[in-house]
Structure formats: C-alpha cells, structure tokens
C-alpha cells in the first residue's frame, strides 16, 4: 500500500499554517494602519491659525468655558465664533502674520475651517454636559491642554477606552468645582471616587448599556 502522504508532508503543513498565520498578521497590521485616525495620538494637527491652548490657558488664564461656552448645557462643547476671538484680537497682535487668516475671515464673514482633533463615529452620541455635571474633568479625556502649543489628542477614543471609565468611573471622578482645573490631582482617588459616585447619583449599572451612547 502506498503512503497516503509524502514524507515531508508534516513540514509542508507546518509551513502552510505558518504562512496563513503570517498573512493574517500582515493583514491585521495593514488594516489597523489603514483604519487609524488621520492624526494619531499625541500628533499635533496643522490648523489654519496656530492656536495655542498653552498660551491662552496658562499664560493668560482664560477659563475653558470662555470659548467652549456650551460645554455645561449641550452635547457639543461649542467652538467659539470668530467674534469671541476678536474680543481680544481686534486690539491685540492684529499685525501678526499668524493671525492674518483670522482677521481676514472675520472681515470677509467667511469662517475658518479648524481641523477636528477629537472626532467620534456618527453612531456615537457623546454628551459633554452630563460628563461635566457628574465630575469628569476636561483633563481626563483631553489631557494637559494647558501645556499644548498646538492641540493634539491624548486618548485613542476607542470604545474600549470609553468603557474603561464607564465600567469604573470612580477612577476618574473629581469634585465638580475642580472639573475645569487642568492641574488638579486627587490625594486619594479611590476613596474620593467611591464617595463621589454616591454624591453625584451615578448609576454604574446603566453606564455600560448600549442605549447610553448609541441610538
């Protein structure tokens, strides 16, 4: 009776399996590279005006809500209308070349097009105001914006990342009066978080339900 398999079949089989595995790996890496956000984490984006949060927040001490005015009331934090910029820049640095696009946009009534740094898929309904009300600080998601000369993303904004906090928000909660303080650090986050969960009536069971973010 002839052999059913060749002698080197075992080797070829292993090679084949390895080949399939390698192809799959390459495919996964390729896919991840293609599907990645246009700008990665910690990569600043070029903007029409090189707006520096570092300068406005740290040097000038402007509150987040001066520009992002609907952050406490709406899903959208709000992008300031150019008239907000012009409250100062109609007087200050008007001759700086970097500000020229702003001035001309304001005068021509055709707005600037800022590149989005934080973007979520359209089936995700993130709401800023409820996070603020429940004691999630700006810095928890946006990082040390006060140290950014150009703005970049510090978080992957994946569902896994969202769920990390939605499963155990006590890791990140802070008192409401410290939400806009970008430098605040808890002394004992575990104890504080547990206490704030109660104070702010946060129902952890509901936070991981699909309908909270998807509709």
């Amino acid at each position, binding site marked *: 009776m002839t052999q059913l398999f060749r002698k080197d079949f075992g080797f070829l089989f292993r090679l084949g399996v390895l080949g399939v595995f390698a192809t799959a790996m390459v495919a996964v890496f390729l*896919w991840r590279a*293609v*599907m*990645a*956000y*246009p*700008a990665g984490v910690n990569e600043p984006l070029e903007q029409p005006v090189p707006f520096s949060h570092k300068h406005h927040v740290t040097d000038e001490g402007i509150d987040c809500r001066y520009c992002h005015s*609907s952050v406490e*009331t*709406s*899903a*959208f934090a*709000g*992008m*300031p*209308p*150019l*008239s*907000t910029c012009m409250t100062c820049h109609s007087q200050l640095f008007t001759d700086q070349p970097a500000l020229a696009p702003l001035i001309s*946009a*304001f005068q021509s*009534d*055709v*707005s*600037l*097009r*800022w*590149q*989005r740094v934080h*973007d979520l*898929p*359209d*089936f995700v*309904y993130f*709401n800023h*105001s*409820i996070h603020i*009300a*429940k004691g999630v600080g700006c810095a928890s998601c946006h990082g040390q914006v006060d140290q950014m000369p150009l703005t970049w993303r510090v978080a992957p904004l994946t569902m896994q990342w969202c769920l990390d906090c939605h499963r155990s928000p006590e890791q990140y909660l802070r008192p409401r009066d410290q939400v806009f303080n970008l430098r605040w650090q808890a002394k004992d986050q575990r104890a504080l978080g547990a206490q704030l969960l109660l104070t*702010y*009536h946060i*129902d952890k*069971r*509901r936070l991981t*339900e*699909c*309908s*909270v973010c*998807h*509709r």
Partner: protein
Amino acid sequence: MPSVNPAGAFDPEAARARLAEARGPIFWRSLEELIDSEGFHRWLSEHHPRLAETFDIDRRGFLKFLGASVALAGLSGCGRPPQRQIVPYVHAPVGQVDGLPRFFASTLIREGYAQGVLVESRMGRPTKIEGNPQHPASLGATDIFAQAAVLQLWDPDRSQGVLYRGDAASWDDFAAALAESNARFDRDGGAGLRLLTGAITSPTLSAQLDALLRKYPQAHWHVHQAAGNDNAASGTKLAFGMPLSTRLNLNRAQVIVALDADFLSDPAAGVRYARDFVGRRSPESASATMNRLYVVESTPSLTGAAADHRLPLESGQIEHFTLQLAKRLGLAVDVRDGVLQQTQWLDALAADLQGNRGVSLIVVGATQPPWMHALGHALNFALGNVGVTIDYSEPVEKLPGDNGTLTDLTTAMGAGLVDTLLVLDANPAYDAPVDLQFAAALKQVPHLLHLGLYCDETGAMAEWHLPLAHQLEAWSDARAYDGSVSISQPLIAPLYEGRSTHEVLAALLGDEVSEGHALVRRQWQQQLPDDAAWDTALQTGVIADTALAVRTVALRADALVHTAPNAAEMNPLELLFRPDPTIGDGRWANNGWLQELPKPLTQLTWDNAVLISPLLAAQHQLVNGDLIELRVGQRTLQVPVWLMPGQAPRSLTLHLGYGRRRAGHVGDGQGFDAYALRSASALWTAPDVQLRKTGQRYELAGTQQHFNMEGRDLLRVGTLADYRHDPHFATASDRYPGTPPSLYPEYPPGEYAWGMSIDLNACIGCKACTIACQAENNIPVVGKDQVRRGREMHWIRVDRYYEGQAENPRIHAQPVPCMMCEHAPCELVCPVDATVHDSEGLNVQVYNRCVGTRFCSNNCPYKVRRFNFLQYVDDSIETLKAQRNPEVTVRRRGVMEKCTYCIQRIETAHIEADKASSRIQDGEVLTACQAVCPTQAIRFGDIADARSEVAQAKASPRNYVMLSELNTRPRTSYLARLRNPNPALPDI
C-alpha cells in the same frame, strides 16, 4: 413580468359562506384573505416570504459569486475615517446654544387655512414639525401634510430661480418687465390684468388684493382650488342669504350624522375635529356618555371607518336619503317615496336624532351640492343644534367677487380679454377641469406669470416663472378654521431665490414696503402696536382674540325651495372624484414620504386606482390590478382597479393628484390623471361612467398583505354594551390569562420602566404617527418596486382590518410599533448581540454591531423589524442631509432597524434629569408618534409609576397585549376598541 392573479376573482358567495360558518368575529385585511382560497396562500407565500426572490444560478456561477464576494467583502470596510473640520460661526446667533434644538411657533397653511405648528430648528436647520398646543386647529397635533412640509422644504426639485420663457433670468429682469407692464396698468386701470390664487385666509394677502383691486379697478381676481369647498359657501348662501363659515362643536355632539362628510380629514380643521370627536368616546370618563356616529357615504373614508353605523349609498342616493330623513324630522320637503329601501335605518336614525335634540349634529360633505348643505343647515335648525353643536361666523376665507371662478377666467381668456395673468401658488394647467381646455386657453395669454414652489405644468407654460419661498422660509399670516390669526415666521433664509406671495404682490402694487416681514408687520401694526405684543403673538403662535365672532343667523323662508333632487332612477354607474388621502389635489406629488405612506383604507402606495365595490368587481370579473378603461362622455382613461370593501355598489372612486407630468423626480409619471375625466359641471360626481375591461394588468404597490399575522387574535373590538356587561371582555379570550411563568430570567428593574399604551378606541387610522416617526427617525423612502417586495421601512405601521361582510364591513385601524417585549424573541437569536435589553425595558438595536443576519426579524412575532436591503438612505443629495435628525444614526445598507420608542428623546430627558439629579417627570418624554396623534391615542411613559398617564391607561379593563399566549410580555399594549351601535338597528 407576467403578473400573478392573486386569488382569482372575488366570489361574494364564498365570502358569505366563510363568514356564516365562523364563530366569533373574523377580522380580515383583504378580500383574498376573506375567501381564504388556496390561491391566496400560494400567492402570499410566493410574493411575500420576506425573502428576496432567488434567481436561477448554476453551480459554476454560484462558486464564482462566492469567490468574488469573499474577495470583495473586506474591501467595503477599508478606508480611514475622514479628517473632518469644524466651521464656527463668525457671529453666533443670539440665543442659540450649539447642539441644542430650538422650537419656533409658526404657521403652515393648508388649502388656505392655518395649522399652528412648532418647528424644531437644529443649528438653523428646520428638521421636524410638531403641533402647537395653543393653536385652536392643532391643540398640539398635526396632520400628515404638516409633517411632510419639512421634506418639501428640502426637496431638491424645488424651483431655484427665475425663468423667462424657460431660460434662467433674475428678479431684476422681472422687476424691469413688471415696471413696463405696471406703466400700462396705470394708464388703463389694469384692464387685462387677472390674478389666480388658491383659497386665501391671510389678512395680509387679503389687504394686498384689496389694494390691488382698488388701484387697478379693471383687474380681476379669480380663485381656483381643485378640491375646494365652494358647495358649502353656496349652501350657506342658499340657507341664510349670505356666505358664512360653519364651525362644528363635536365635543358637544351626542349623535352625529355625516352625509358624505369626511370631517376627520377636513383640510382646515380635521385635526381639531378628530380630538373633539374622540373626546366624547371614552367609556371610562364619567362626565360624558359615548357619542354615536352615523355615516352615509359612497366611498369609505376615515370618518366612515370611525362610524358606529355606516351605510354605503351612491352619491345621488344620499340626496334621497337626506330628504327622507328631513321628512321624518318634520321638514317640508318634496320627497319621492319608494326610492330607498333603508326605511329601518331612516326610522331609527330619525328617532335617535329626535331623542337627542340640541346635542345632535348633521354634517354635509364638500362633495354634496349646495342645496344639500342648505338642507343640512335646516335640519340642524329643526333639531335645535344651532348655537350648540354648530356655529356660524363671517366667512374665514376671502371670497372673490362675481365672476371670480376659474370658469369665468377661462371664458375671459378665450375672449382675448386677458393680457397678463398672474398665477399665485396654483397649478391650473394641471388641475383645471378638462372641459375648460384651460391649458389651450393659457396659450392665448400674452403674459403668463407664475409664482410657484415648483416649475410645474403651469410654470412650464409661463412667460415668467418665479420661485416661491417655502412656508418655512417666508413671513405670512393665515386664519384657522375659527378665524384665529397666526403668524408664519421663517425658520431659515430662502434656500434658493424664492420670494413670498406678499413680496410679489407688493412689487406689482409698487408698494414702498417690499420685504415680507415689514409687510406682515404693517398689517398688524394696529392690533399689535409695540414689539412686546408682536413678540408675544409670535411666541404663542396665535394672535389673541382674533377668532371670528359667532353670528346669530336666521334661516331664510325659501331655504328649501331650491331643493331639486336628481331623477329617481339610478345612475347606471357613477364616478366620484376625491382628493387623494396622501397627496391631496396633486400639490404633494413630489413628496416621497407622502407617496410611500400607505393610504388610509386602501393601503396603496405610489399610485392611485379606481376603487370599485366587490360586487361590481364580481360582475365584471375584475381583480386588483386589472387595467380598465373608464369612459365619461367622449373622454377615456385607463386605470387599474382596486376592490374596496364598503364601497357603494354603483360608485367608482378615483383620487385626484396623480399623473403629474412636471412634479419633479419623485412624482412624475406616478399613477393616473383623474383630471382627464373631470369636468366643471361634474366636479365631484360624473353621473354616467362606463367601464371596459382591457385584459391588461398593472402592478400596484399595496401593503395590506405585508407583515400578515395569519389570522391571529390581534384586534379586540366590542360594543359599549359588551363593555358594560364585562369590562374585561378584551382579555376574556386570552388563552393564558395573567402573566404565565417563564423560563427566561427576569431583568432587574431599572430606574424607569418605559411602556406604551395605544387606545384603539381613539385611533382613527389617519397615519400621522407613521409619517411623524419617519421625520423624527431618519427613515428612508424605498420606492414603489421595493414596497412591492414588502420592504417598506416604516417603524410604526397602521394595520387596517375589516370585519363582517365585504359589502359593508366595519373598518378598524391598529398602529403597530415595536412591542418592546420583556422577553424578546429577537434578542435570543442575534449572533452578535446587536439587539439587547436595557435596564429600563427598552429592546435596543445597536446599528454598529448589526451584521444583517435578519434572524431577529424572522423571530419577531409582531413583524416590526425593518431591514435595509439596499442603500436606501440618499447619501448624495445635500439638502436631504440637512433635513435629518442629528440625534438619530443614519442607517446604511445591511443593517436591521426598528422602533426605539424615540430613544433619542428619552436620552435627552434622561441627561437633563441626571444633571439635576432629579427624575424625569411624566409627560416630559413624548415619542414622535404620541406627540403628533390628533386623538391622543398613544400614551408613553414610566409604567412603574402608578400615577403616570400610561400606567393609568394600562390599568383600564380594556387593556390587552398582542399574542399574549407567546408570553413575550410586550411593553406596548392596546386598549380594545368600542363601538356604540343603536340597539334599534341591526348591528352589521
């Protein structure tokens, strides 16, 4: 494709036999189902297995497709997310919080009459219409047309610029041309100038017309409304010597008789009338006893479906019926005996009316001749109803002077008397009676000016076509059915170059004020002198104390002298013309939502058909979809047949509004042009029509068989007597009463337990819920071909059931949204957990997880899930994107979707309550279907809170759930329908 004859011709004997052997009520949705033939089941399984048809393919081809699918499958997922931009305002609008909707009170005008609405504006885009609770014609609800108005605004087919003989021009060109003709009018007093408009109630427009006719005394103004209510005005003239407006107080009426009158679909006040009518039908309310509605009509209407007793009679027979009734009530009328067999009906009806003097009401429909209206007024006087259930006031509409009809205009045009014709928002080239030869006469007019939303049939013939600003883009005002004035304020600057009628008339007048806001403001300068009063009027949506006073009137002595009944002998066959239930007289033909909305009662979409009675169909061996030729005089029209249970045997009904030639991409070429048979002398009824079978077939897209529930006990109906005998009659037939035990685990209770109750006793089947849901939830339009395959996407459908004999069945409606089962069969079969339960009892659908296996849909016993078989959502037309609700995901191809109880509204309320650490109050979350419902049949809220409205509704003994034997424990439950038949009449 050769069409399949559904079940052979309708056999009345078979139907009777089936009903005779039945025990208990039998509900049926189509005649094929009623006779329950073998052919029907075969046809049903062939046509609606909820599967796409399979196509022939050999093994080799199959493998090729398989390989290609696998290879290409990955590609569709490739592509990185786009780098998107944020474009901030230069100057932020005052009072706007980015991302939050704002609501503005405004007015939508339907056939001249005001409907008060609240328009939702999202970042400056009008996206959804709600009713204005403070407006008398709305009380918070709207009809289907108000809901669809927002799609009309964003319709890319709207006229976008001025056209001069079909070529692009500008408003400046038009102004130059107008200056020339104005100089001529100044010299000759406007001789040769004619205006044509639809019905007008707007005080601003009335004042402008008066000013124009003063300035140019030789000019003439004509009114043309294809489906207007001229007969009613002429009727009051006959009865009282002057035209008056009639106002029904249905909330005070105990016995109502509708003579060919569909008051629940009244263009001016249908929404309000529905609320008032249903308000007196609740058996639970202690204050009022349940009213009783008798309807005598030739073709089934919403009002007929709501009737306790319905009598199908040919249009001419209704006249005899009314005369007989008048005689029995003691009026001096000339009656021919022996014409009618319905003596038992007449006696019982007369007795019931006599017994309810002062709280009864006779309503005569717009399609009946003026003398019938006069007779109706006389009857109401005789019964002491005037001042109680019916009121009169000065006419709400502005009425043209003598010679103000379309016929007069045509005569003048034929005589060469018309030099300049300005058509304001009307389309006579399409909807004029055919015998006027209006389009031919138009060609003799040297200067035809047309202001319209679309460059339609009339616009195409015009020298100057001017784009009209949409109602949501312009300032205006209008009166409601009771005369209350409300202001129409723009929600958005005109998308295109549109201008309002006021602005165009101001230009014609040479008014120094030219801009819409200033024109309307000037009109109300006296009543609303300061800005505060003006702002209040805008915010409430009604100008206070503008309702027209009720007038005391006296019946003229010769009111009934004009009575001239038709000859007693029957018309062989009569053809009735009626406005289409969803596209009206044709002006809504380019609206996809309205085209695809299954028409109440027929459940047809995208087409009209001639409605014939099953008996007539059996005589002529006709089945649904057979093409027949109708002949009226010398004119013929080929049109498909639709069998209409409850249709008077010798009446044929044809709906107006179809067969448009220049409606736009959506409406062009759909259906059949009924105007081709309509003559000026027989606007509503062509007395002698012949029909001939052509032997050809036409594919109609009806939805009455879709989502068939195989004859299960889904609808519970009883009489008031049944209810008094056993209030729990609705659940008496449940196989397992109460809540049986279940193998599935209970979910732990959440903070709220959302639930819905639908009162079938209040539902009139108007389908406003379906279209409100479509507007709120970004539900796509799929087109006629897809509807025929059973793929319409409506999340809440309204099933229509018949009960009893096909000649005159009872008609019921049942809205079916998602049942939100506590033990949901769909959840168990989803392989990817795309449909899951949440702690508040919602059965949520997660679109981004769905891979489209459709297992859930197959396992849903209620057939409420909808699948995107193709890419239905239009993702290329920019204006349509602007209409969509940003709070709801736009679903793509391959994704299952269904009713969510408007989860976006729940979440919004949830977030607001959570921010304040408070609870959502009862009534804070209104689903779209609940908010729009004219009769408040739908209630929604937290069923765990015993004080909530929905919990109280569910506590009613009439409460039942569909398919309780499956133990799915639906959160959506129904309240059984009740009828209040007269014991003196056989209850058929």
